């Protein structure tokens, strides 16, 4: 394989990896946008989504689309439940306390799943044929294209919801100023709950797709992708939907190039280094608006 082609192949690898980060980052960024909480449990919600999909296929014998829907709905409810039980009582508490609660929820989801489904990885059944498309030596997997496509479609749908529907307007209002929004007749609690539901549903989609694509899921699978997705969201400008997707794809491409041309052991370091450099140049991320704090 010549150099130019290798670069192209790495670009394909990177974009496909990045689209997974992007998919998780979408939910992350929505939740952050509305309650300014780094929801460290988001990666674990993604893991739970993957397991629900897994059991829907293997135990209930569903095919992929119904299984995805079951996982999506159940995980959305789980996300709303977590918000109601763990975050809502702390709405007026110091932000760091909520963050610690999020870490607590994350540990709880990880280790409760580990207790119930054992730490052994499960192999996702092959519910979809994996078609490798070969274009003059350049290999693209059909599932990669599917994940990328779904990410973009979801981004467009979400942007539409947030920009043009009443719920979306309420979301933006609540994100701008929760209390004023409440005074204007918006039920902020309901809006926050809906946001958690949508964000968690997105995580479930990502979880099931990753399960299908990589064939294996385990209770700690959410930690790293969750962290990377957060990095992607910050990179793109947290709270901004297209930012999450762009951030995710940049991250994926950087990782692929570092793994391919330097060494994969420096991959994560490079990902963080890119993040820090971008933040130093643009302290609120690529698409972030720089708001000056007033006294």
């Amino acid at each position: 394989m010549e150099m130019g082609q290798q670069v192209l192949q790495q670009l394909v690898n990177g974009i496909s990896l990045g689209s997974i980060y992007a998919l998780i980052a979408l939910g992350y960024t929505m939740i952050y946008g509305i309650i300014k909480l780094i929801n460290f449990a988001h990666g674990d919600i993604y893991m739970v989504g993957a397991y629900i999909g897994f059991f829907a296929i293997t135990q209930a014998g569903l095919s992929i689309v119904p299984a995805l829907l079951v996982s999506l709905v159940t995980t959305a409810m789980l996300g709303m439940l977590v918000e109601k039980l763990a975050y809502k009582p702390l709405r007026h508490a110091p932000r760091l306390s909520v963050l610690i609660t999020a870490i607590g929820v994350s540990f709880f989801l990880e280790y409760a799943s580990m207790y119930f489904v054992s730490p052994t990885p499960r192999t996702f059944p092959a519910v979809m044929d994996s078609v490798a498309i070969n274009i003059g030596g350049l290999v693209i997997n059909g599932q990669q294209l599917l994940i990328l496509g779904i990410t973009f479609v979801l981004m467009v749908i979400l942007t539409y919801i947030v920009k043009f529907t009443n719920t979306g307007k309420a979301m933006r209002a609540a994100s701008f100023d929760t209390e004023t929004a409440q005074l204007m007749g918006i039920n902020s609690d309901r809006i926050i709950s809906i946001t958690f539901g949508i964000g968690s549903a997105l995580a479930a989609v990502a979880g099931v797709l990753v399960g299908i694509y990589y064939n294996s899921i385990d209770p700690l699978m959410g930690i790293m992708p969750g962290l990377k997705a957060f990095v992607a969201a910050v990179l793109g400008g947290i709270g901004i939907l297209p930012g999450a997707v762009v951030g995710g794809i940049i991250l994926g491409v950087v990782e692929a190039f570092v793994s391919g041309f330097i060494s994969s052991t420096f991959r994560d370091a490079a990902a963080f280094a890119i993040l820090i450099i971008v933040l130093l140049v643009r302290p609120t991320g690529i698409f972030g608006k720089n708001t000056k704090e007033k006294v």
Partner: protein
Amino acid sequence: MFFSKKTAKLMSVLAGTMLMGGVLSGCGGDSAASSDEIKIGANFEMTGNVANYGQATLDGLNLAIDEINAAGGVNGKKLVVVSADNKSEAAEAVNAATKLISDDKVKVLVGPAVTANVIAESQVATDNKVPVIAPDATSPDVTVENGQVKPFIFRSCFIDPQQGTVMAKFATENLKAKTAVIYVDNSSDYSKSLGKVFKEEFEKAGGKVLMEEAFLAKDQDFKATLTSIKTANADVVFVPAYYEEVGKIVKQARELGITSPILGTDGWDDSKVADIAGVDALNNTYFSTHYSDKDESVKGFLEAFEKKYGHAPNVFAALGYDAGKLLADAIKRAGNDDSEKIRQAIEETKDLQVGTGIITMDPKTHNPIKQAVILQNKDGGRVMVAKIMPE
């Protein structure tokens, strides 16, 4: 007034927390060792990033101990496994070992699974003169330090040089390979040292290592590195790693069009590899391990494990089972639960039939002398292509 109210509330929270902890530690403390049981400390990775290895080994150990107790125990006493979690971390492994020794008063330790954690534990065990059997730690440093064998530390598995040599020989002699790429898990001592041995032996036999690449445990996507491995176009790719990553590596390598044979070691010995990679992708791969599932002598173990846990054992479970059998035999020969006697008995183990074959402990290195086999993955099954008896 303001303060005292706040203080009172605070104190009650604090007191509550302490009380909870106190009660828990109270009943978890040393319940008086009854004379008709012998306590075995199991220090394993039960949470954290290699929990699946620790847990599988513990499953194997528990099965062995259950079988022994069902057959009347050892010298009329029951064996009791007291487990402790080391969170997959070296410092916590010391902490867990200290707890098992000082609070639970165990006579012998089994575990942890990972080399670094065993090495961390070994000093505490030596200081307290409690023998350790490491079921899966393959690095030579586990039992030998500065050319001296550590008197209380034993293992019941291969060491890395043994497997690395076997596979390098197999690559050059049986597969007639001239060039190789080595792809190791950089977060694992096991994988790195196997890669090193393979390289030395492969080059000694006249082969050429074209490229050495690394990944990290828990990686999901290997395509970037595999893309550059593909450009090397080597005769064989050597991936000494654990099953979860191996399955994904094989799958993604085949997808990218890497067709050369892929070789591995006993970390591959899990049916999950085939589930993850798929039957077709797994063709033309070979790995060394402890036994072939067609061996008559391991049938009993395989059936018993399947019956108890509902799935086939992987290599960790098999090695945990071996450690349990080895230990029970040693305690039996020691005659009582004196740690020094048990230590000596483990050292004198000879021609003992365990789950995966027959082992003899080498008193000079505390490594077991045992057979190795090379299996080929073929159309969903495994074919034994070589059996290497210890010299």
